[in-house]
């Protein structure tokens, strides 16, 4: 069964928000996929980097809740390879920010014990930043 995405005001708003927060023109992405094959973490992502760009272009909320944006290691390889000159790392950061603004606690920093060893460092940093910024 194929899914139909009904494009509405919500989609438009999310795309605009991502552009505003990242400062990047996401409509520039031509979906070549060079980011995905350049990404050292792509194999572990639920949405590929090029997919993240696609979801962002159509303003699909699922990109904000994706695991991929937390798996991103911010290594910037995508950024230096993008033939359209898009800074994908900034887009990922914008998406993380949007996720955090939802105020959903995935990690309770006050009760981190044995989980600490398993969590990606970026997740801990982000969780802590929520309380400091």
């Amino acid at each position, binding site marked *: 069964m194929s899914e139909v995405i009904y494009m509405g005001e919500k989609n438009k708003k999310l795309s605009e928000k991502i552009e505003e927060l990242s400062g990047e023109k996401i409509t520039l992405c031509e*979906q*070549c*996929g060079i*980011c*995905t094959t350049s*990404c050292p973490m792509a*194999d572990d992502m639920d949405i*590929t980097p090029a997919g993240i760009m696609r979801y962002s272009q159509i303003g699909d909320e699922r990109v904000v809740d994706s695991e991929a944006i937390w798996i991103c290691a911010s290594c910037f390889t995508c950024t230096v390879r993008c033939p359209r000159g898009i800074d994908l790392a900034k887009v990922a950061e914008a998406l993380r920010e949007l996720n955090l603004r939802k105020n959903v606690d995935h990690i309770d920093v006050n009760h981190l014990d044995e989980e600490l060893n398993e969590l990606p460092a970026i997740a801990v940093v982000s969780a802590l930043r929520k309380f400091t910024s």
Partner: protein
Amino acid sequence: MKIGVYVCHCGGNISDVVDVEKVAEFASRQPDVAVVRSISHMCSESGQRAIIDDIQQYNLDKIVVSACSPQFQGETFKKAVAKAGLNPNMVVMANIREQSAWPHHDEPENATEKAKILTAMAIEDIRKKEPVEKVTLKMGKNVLVIGGGIAGIQASLDLANAGFNVYLVEKKPTIGGHMAQLSRTFPTEDCSSCILSPKMADVAEHPNIHLMTYSEVLEVNGSIGNFNVRILKKPKYVDEDKCTACNKCTEVCPVSVPDEFNLGMTMRKAIYLPSSTAVPHSHVLDEDACLGLKPLACGLCSQVCEADAINYDDMPQYINLKVDTIIVATGFDIFDAHLKPQYGYRKYRNVINALEMERIIVEMAEGHVIRPIGKDIAFIQCVGSRDAQVGNLYCSRICCMYATKLASLLKRMDPSREVYVFYTDLRAFGKGFEEYYRTAQELGVKFIRGRPGELAEDPESKKVVVRVEDTLTRKIIEKKFDLVVLSVGLVPGEGTVKIAEMLKLPRSADGFIKEAHPKFRPVDTPVEGIFVAGCAQGPKDIPDTVAQASAAAARAMSLMNKGEYEMSPIKAFVHEDLCDGCGLCVEACPVDAIKVAGVAEINVAVCKGCGACISSCPRNAIDLRIFSNEEVMAQVDAALRDKKPGEKRIIMFADDMCTYTLADGVGTAKLKYNSNTYIIRVPSSSRVTPEMMVRAFEKGADGIFLGECEAAVSPYPDTLKVIEENVKKAREMLARAGIEEDRIQYSPFVTVMFKKFVALANKMLRMAEKYGDIPEEKRRRLGMEKVIYHE
């Protein structure tokens, strides 16, 4: 002086907004006006008839047509007055449609007032106008074609067949260019060198073509009708006429070096035939590779040459030519894949570029296996094209199709091969291209939509690992290939860059030579008499190249065939009694049209009529025909006449190519801007001197705006710099008189910047309103200010 003024209704386009009868009545009260009429359609047969009849009946000697834009109907009325026996310069148009009725359609009273003033400006302009003689130039029939690829070959043959005298210069020892290296051509799969070699032979045999291979253009001076060219003919050490290409010299030559024709994948000797289809069909001795000529170290080749064609004492020759036109066909280079190090070109043994693949296939067809190519072959598209990371934003246009072709050929040769093409967008836009793409798919070529980030080499098998996101399934796929072919894009050739600099041809942002107009003058360059064809102008396939070459040949013929060439009469001229020969104008001229011999002299063949020289002259000794200081200032005066206290008038100088066209576009789109803006058409705003700006304020202007073409589209080089300097000087004078400096503004435009135009025009008015009227006393003080010339 008897002037006839004709006010057009434009079938309601004007008369629905502007009260044309009031404009006509106003015109009848202007000095020297003898006849005034308002007519429904001035441009119609009957409208033109009215002008012609009146000229004959009332002996009118000057005509003003208050109607639409002179860019739209200017030529019509020039022809009409010429029919009646007047000089074509004896008509001026007041643009009351695009500049009044349309942009001010919701304020009819203001539109009518503005139409009156625009008409008065035209009347004052024509009162100062003098008949202007045609500027013609004698033209011979000699053409220099630079570059002997398919573009240069086609252009040379067309011109030579039409009876013109062609000098074809090629830097390599043979003509043919890249086309001679290709396997087959898409989409027909013709053998490339087979269809090219008859044309190459035609060039060699044509009595009207003087072929100079192994030669370079060193220097070009002069201008259309009189280009002086200096050419270096490098020594070949083999007499082209005597050599029979028997190949004995090559057989005995002990030196081997990489063969350029096969991109270094095979070796050639120091004395060699450049290719099997070389034209001229003669060997050449590579002096850098030879064991030694002076003194002679080896001499084996000479001993075996039965034709006695080898001459070790050959010397470089310098040839001077005089030609009337030039065609630049200097071609392209392939993108250097080293600039994408992540693809491992020349680092991984099994990564090659597409031109190397072409040569491998050609050699294979002739039974020479240059290198193994294996079963699994991948093509990677857009290498060096459409890539901000290497600064090439453009599509190279041919790679999709040549990869499709090479993939098809490989698949046909051995259907058990697996051939993949990794692409981002597949562009099959040409005639027969889409069908050809389909044929490749039928053959089983696999097209995968995805761009690999990097390639890796399997350390043992030396196979190349391609890892790519199939963006259609959103899955990452990985496969090992025996060979990866990089579909490299096209970049401006080294020769193209060199020749562009030598001939002062501007290049567009992509680095290729810029055409004079992207739509209507696609093979002309902004330099009169120089044309461009083929990949020197931008990436293109063979049919487009040939079409362009024929077009360039036809354009060159149309200039030369009449024996004389009529130039635009807008040219700088010198008041010899005022000129003291200081030479400041020489430096100011962006096209080197001025030289000083006692007094300044203008080379009308070179002068493009921008007027950038005028403001450089401290003695007002240099001026511009048709747009002289007097003619322009007469319009300024008329635009500011009878200004009431508190009323605001802004003078906008608009360059003809961009700003004036833009203002017409804004009017046509019925976009509104204030009716206080009065536009004066000039070839370039650089002809507006600081003195003129200051005089305009003295006469009551509240603001001055100068619009100019953006440098990238301007027909004149560097005028924005002149404008900047002029504005600076004028602002200094304003400041000394205590007047706000920013009453003078300028901006570059292109013809589509509608919003920017409206915003800037309105901003000028808001500023004038904010500052209020310039007090009488300050204007008097300004009248005493003089331009201070720096340096």
